[in-house]
């Protein structure tokens, strides 16, 4: 598998995420879309890190730097946090509006 394959996949994920976010009529599925987007990014990072990060020699032995992977881990963490907050807010929304359809939450406008 070459870098391209990963990139293609991640781009597809990203697009799907965007699509979901734009079209879903349910807050939960929007959240899912968002998760897709974030994960596509993580995938990118890892892939890039794996393929093109230049190796540098530390004390003679070949060691790879894991920048990308680290970023990905942070990304996952943040995604989780975001999901948590999102869900909490959806709860509040449901309490106030009795629905979690995003297009019904539009009292603020103009």
């Amino acid at each position, binding site marked *: 598998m070459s870098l391209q394959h990963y990139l293609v996949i991640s781009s597809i994920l990203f697009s799907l995420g965007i699509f979901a976010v734009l079209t879903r009529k349910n807050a939960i599925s929007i959240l899912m879309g*968002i998760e897709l987007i974030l994960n596509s*990014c993580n995938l990118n990072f890892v892939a890039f890190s794996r393929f*093109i990060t230049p190796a540098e020699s530390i004390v003679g032995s070949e060691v790879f730097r894991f920048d990308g992977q*680290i*970023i990905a881990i942070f*990304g996952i963490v943040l995604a989780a*946090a975001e999901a948590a907050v999102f869900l909490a807010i959806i709860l509040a929304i449901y309490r106030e509006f009795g629905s979690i359809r995003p297009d019904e*939450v539009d009292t603020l406008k103009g």
Partner: protein
Amino acid sequence: MEPLKNIESLAYFSPEILLVVFAAAVIISDLIVKNRESNIVAYISLVGLGCSLVAILVTNSFINSNEPISLFFGMIRLDGFAVFFKILLLLATAATILFSLRSEELDVRLKGEYYALLLAVTFGMFLMASSTNLLMIFISLETVSLTSYILAGFLTHSPRSSEAAFKYITYGAVASGTMLFGLSMLFGMAGTGDLMQISSQVAAVLDSGGVSTLTVLIAITFILAGIGYKIASVPFHMWSPDVYEGAPIPITAFLSVASKAAGFALFLRFFHVGFGKPEILQSIDWGLLLAIVSALTMTVGNLAALPQQNVKRLLAYSSIAHGGYLLMGAVLLTTEGLGAIFFYLIVYLFMNLGAFYVVVLVANEAGTEMIDGYRGLATRAPFVACAMAIFLFSLTGIPPLAGFFGKWVLFYAVIGEGLYWLAFIGLLNSVVSLYYYARIVKAMYLESTEDTDSFSFPTSTIALLSVFVVPTILIGFLPIFYTLSEKIILQ
């Protein structure tokens, strides 16, 4: 100079650390203190801000401006630029806390969390102002966002607040996601997260033909979406009116000033350091892009503000417009431009926060955020009305108020680069803006109301208000502020 290792970095990291410590302290003390009415937590957090301010100044004294220090293996950097923004943000936060003390819409039971979150946000913003690594940028951005989402939705049992939070998080998540994707592409091209090296790396790749300009363009645009959402620039501004309207007023004030400022810090560092390099500029005309964006931003903001009836929302749009003005300074990333932005941010801090404070007060007394609520304020609370008038006219940019001088330096920078058209748009916009600002003044001074019982404010309020009024009048006349740019050129 060589980036410092983690342990030795800590000393320079003390301001942020202090913030975190005090955030914890706030929560704990909140658990201890039984009396819901006491504002002890607020004062603790204020103390925290104080300490962190001191720490900033101390650490600042270690460094000399022309040789900044990078900490944590170059994750973040401590330079004049960062220090400036940190102080700015501290002031904004302090103001917000003071507003919150006066605000009556906040739920007394959640004080602890509230102030803790505020400190957390500030912490995140500190990172935004100083991060020099893609990873750090992303983390700081997310920290700020997540906490702000909660703060925006902090009013329990208020549909508006919840809606605001919902829109905010949805919008924010997508935007930051997009940005992250852009970052990943950038990372892929450069092979490093270090902002200092990215530009040169990307340039190299471009030259070697490894990637096309289009890729770079897409990456940058994605990132722009993330940053643009923070500074609410067209077309990434649409969340802000709704969120500002829904959020508790102190938070609105905070978002409109602090998070905008932090956003600009990030923006400037990213583009100026990351992509201010000529070779990148050649391939894509960033200047024009930003010019158009800023023109659109201020125009949209002002025009949309014209018909608003809700003062909070009106100010939201006006703050979008001001984002546009600020962007003018960033168009060509010249020293004058930066200086102008710094100067304008200071001015904006005072006048905008002041205006929002008045909104808080009126909301408390008259119980409304609508313009009608301001009828006859001149007779009911002369000083407050006068202060509001000063803030609004300063926002318009009428001499001799600070706002004028702020605009002056901005337009000076723009015209200095020969962008007359942008200057004209900006100036025409400020004429338009007069109209809606004046509507509030009109309501306060030229219209009368049936109930003429005067509002009574404690001296503390008046004092705080004058803390905003005085600079709004004076800053323009103090030469020192005009020379900031020389002190805080970022490397």
